[in-house]
């Protein structure tokens, strides 16, 4: 739908927001017309969720204004935003499972009658559903509902409070394909009724199917706002993923021995669903293989299996000719496999412990640090000193805790520590995520040095720029499977972007 002559339903002007010195949004303009579905596109960390949280009153912008129907509004709480007509449905539902649909709709709402029988609430809920044209059994308990139905309850809950502008944060991430189609129908019906929808996603195909207009964010900056009609998946993928990074890396075709061999690997996630599904991969000595993909497509679980922190259900992992399938983390360390974990603080570091203790966390059993039962504290301090110097970690003392270090310094320490473990293989998960440019490049060049020393590196990142910059070969993961594998020379950004979004490749492969 083209911009009508009427006023936009929602307008955001020059919105900026930073978290602890990191800019999440930089003077972003965004507007939603009445009766349109407006898609907000971008990679992880591009600022989509931050922007929508500001529009919905969860965060306050550092700078900029929000106008609803042309009136300047300042929201301090989500209820104020809803009162003004802006409501948000979060990716992770905020429903009370042991309560009924009607009760959840009425929860924390000023209009809820003070004395209310279940029947009364159910009748009221029924009435809203009638008005809005969305139906869920009001007496059903939340835990009895499918994910798609729970999402409808969330939508009802927001609309019942009078929201005219509905923000949906990655609504299809949790839905089956069929449920997604149902959702799109609901959205079309809502906009026909005069409401507006902001639809956040990074799945390009569905965005083009459902939206009237599209806005692309990258690194907190608006790249474009345009009609969805006529836009191509390819073009949006380029806008989303942007240009290449800054350090120069020579790519090469490596013919060395296979150092890390993964075959038919299957593993489950914490919710016991298959997250890694029959993955075959090999990384040669002196080679970086990048795994591109949107977060949550099994990369985390794959890395954890390789580090010995998750059990593989099927398949095998080899380092050289040695089988390390389901070996303990200790055995895997002994095989010279380093790992920069995605969850640095949760898994990579012991925050309340000292820099020195953290520096030797994966080495303390080595002969030069251990004698009999003892741990040689002098040798530990020397080892830590050397690591801190080579990693250029800024710290007031080796005895200070790692929790005091900045994120960049923590990651420098972690990357160098793991590089010292990685005699043969390094598995690096999102090594530069959240770092400033300098720290990111230092961590990246640590990996390049390691590669040049003959180590095999598996690089997992949802930052396609980083993957293309660093990798000699690129594999794409989608829903637990490797859906594409490219030599760096033929690694085409657009094709990879499309594969990451779950689209079939042109030659009929996924």
């Amino acid at each position, binding site marked *: 739908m083209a911009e009508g002559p009427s006023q936009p339903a929602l307008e955001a002007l020059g919105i900026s927001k930073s978290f602890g010195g990191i800019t999440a949004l930089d003077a972003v303009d965004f507007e939603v017309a009445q009766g349109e579905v407006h898609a907000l596109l971008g990679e992880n960390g591009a600022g989509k969720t931050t922007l929508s949280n500001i529009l919905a009153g969860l965060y306050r912008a550092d700078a900029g204004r929000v106008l609803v129907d042309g009136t300047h509004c300042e929201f301090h709480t989500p209820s104020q935003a809803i009162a003004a007509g802006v409501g948000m449905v979060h990716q992770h539902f905020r429903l009370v499972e042991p309560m009924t649909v009607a009760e959840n709709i009425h929860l924390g709402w000023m209009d809820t009658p003070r004395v209310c029988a279940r029947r009364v609430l159910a009748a009221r809920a029924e009435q809203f559903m009638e008005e809005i044209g969305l139906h869920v059994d009001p007496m059903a308990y939340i835990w009895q509902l499918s994910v798609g139905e729970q999402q409808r309850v969330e939508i009802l809950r927001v609309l019942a409070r009078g929201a005219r502008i509905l923000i949906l944060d990655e609504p299809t991430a949790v839905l089956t394909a069929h449920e997604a189609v149902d959702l799109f129908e609901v959205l079309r019906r809502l906009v026909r009724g005069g409401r507006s929808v902001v639809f956040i996603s990074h799945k390009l195909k569905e965005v083009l199917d459902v939206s009237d207009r599209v806005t692309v964010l990258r690194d907190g900056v608006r790249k474009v706002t345009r009609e969805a009609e006529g836009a191509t998946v390819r073009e949006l993928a380029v806008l989303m993923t942007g240009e290449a990074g800054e350090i120069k890396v020579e790519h090469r075709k490596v013919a060395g021995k296979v150092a890390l061999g993964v075959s038919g690997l299957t593993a489950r996630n914490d919710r016991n669903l298959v997250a890694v599904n029959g993955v075959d991969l090999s990384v040669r000595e002196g080679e970086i293989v990048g795994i591109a993909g949107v977060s949550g497509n099994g990369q985390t679980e794959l890395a954890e299996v390789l580090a010995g922190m998750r059990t593989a259900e099927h398949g095998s992992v080899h380092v050289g000719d040695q089988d390390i399938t389901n070996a303990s983390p200790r055995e895997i360390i002994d095989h010279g496999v380093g790992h920069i974990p995605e969850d640095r603080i949760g898994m990579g*570091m012991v*925050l309340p412990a000292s820099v020195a203790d953290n520096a030797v966390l*994966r080495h303390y059993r080595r002969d030069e640090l251990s004698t009999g039962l003892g741990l040689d504290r002098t040798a530990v301090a020397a080892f830590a000193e050397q690591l801190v110097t080579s990693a250029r970690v800024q710290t007031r003392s080796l005895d200070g805790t790692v929790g005091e270090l900045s994120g960049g310094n923590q990651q420098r320490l972690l990357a160098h520590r793991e590089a010292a473990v990685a005699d043969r293989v390094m598995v690096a998960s999102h090594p530069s995520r959240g770092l400033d440019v300098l720290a990111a490049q230092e961590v990246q060049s640590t990996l390049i040095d390691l590669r040049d020393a003959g180590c095999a590196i598996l690089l997992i990142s949802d930052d396609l720029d980083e993957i293309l910059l660093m990798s000699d070969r690129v594999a794409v993961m989608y829903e637990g499977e490797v859906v594409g594998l490219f030599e760096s020379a033929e690694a085409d950004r657009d094709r990879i972007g499309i594969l990451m979004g779950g689209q079939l490749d042109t030659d009929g492969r996924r």
Partner: protein
Amino acid sequence: MKAFRLERQLDLDPRRAALYRILGALCALLLGALVLVATGRNPVWILGQAIDAIFSRQRGIEGVALRATPILMTALSVALCLRLRIWNIGAGGQFLAGAFAAVGVGINLDAPGWVVLFAMAAAGTLAGAAWILVPALARAYWGVNEIITTLLLNFVAVQLAAWAALGFWRDEEAFAIQSTKSIEDTLPGIPGTESLSIALFFPLVIAGVLWWVFRSTRAGYEIDMIGGNPKAAAFAGINVPRRMVAVMLVTGAIAGLGGMIQLAGSPGAQQLNAGFGAQYGLSGFIVATIAAGSFLGLVVAGFLIAAMFFAGLILQTRGLSVYIILALYGIILIGVAVGEIAARFRLVRADLDIAPPESP
């Protein structure tokens, strides 16, 4: 607008933390003094009496050392467990279980004195460890909250002791207080003292060993890493559940041994009853909390709490209720806890133009 605001300190200087804990304890004592004044007593006079009771005679100092021994044993048990960030609330129960096993061996084993004593020590140690076995396994392998399980087993231990005292090991000749028969072999005394036995050396040696373990062994390092972040410890190649169970068993063993040395080393404690060592679980807990991970500090704190305990007993003869001492314990613990948190914050005067954090 300018206003005072509490700001969290990222780096916590251990000396500052210790200072604040001591300040907290002093504030608590001051609060206690105010209560005494409010109820028409003179805290200065009471303090003078207490100091006089402890230091004027040899029996006073011995009385403190005698009470410090079991308190230190339970405190060491709690403190070791705390290095894992696991709360052993059941040190009192393990203490009682150790005494139970020791008395069973002591009254039933017919052997030379030193054999009996060694057997009692072994039985006490094993019983203490056995008493924490189920909570340890449940915590390490299924994540069951140890605070509940260890706490509840205290009550079971009290009932077990009562059963022994009233039933199968009952002393038929005693009429007034129901207790078990007395053991005949006791730990050798320390020459030159009236009432002290070598039991006093047990906690001092154990504190020294633990200090060394955490200063210079790999096991100590691994325990601290598990305490700091179990997932990172597993990533470092430590078998976290197994190590956790092992350490918890040792903490139970220390408390159990404490029960045995109390039974065999404290004058007049040679029989078991349901009230045996009733305060030592709680006192040990307080001492371990005050010491906050330092084994040297633990010994000092243990003697201080024992001195308070002893002074309380003396003051009872001067008309002061024992409950005042128990209340003071509680206030001190709260004071130390507040001090520990206060050390992490600093009062700053700053602009108030930053929006309060909103939870998403």
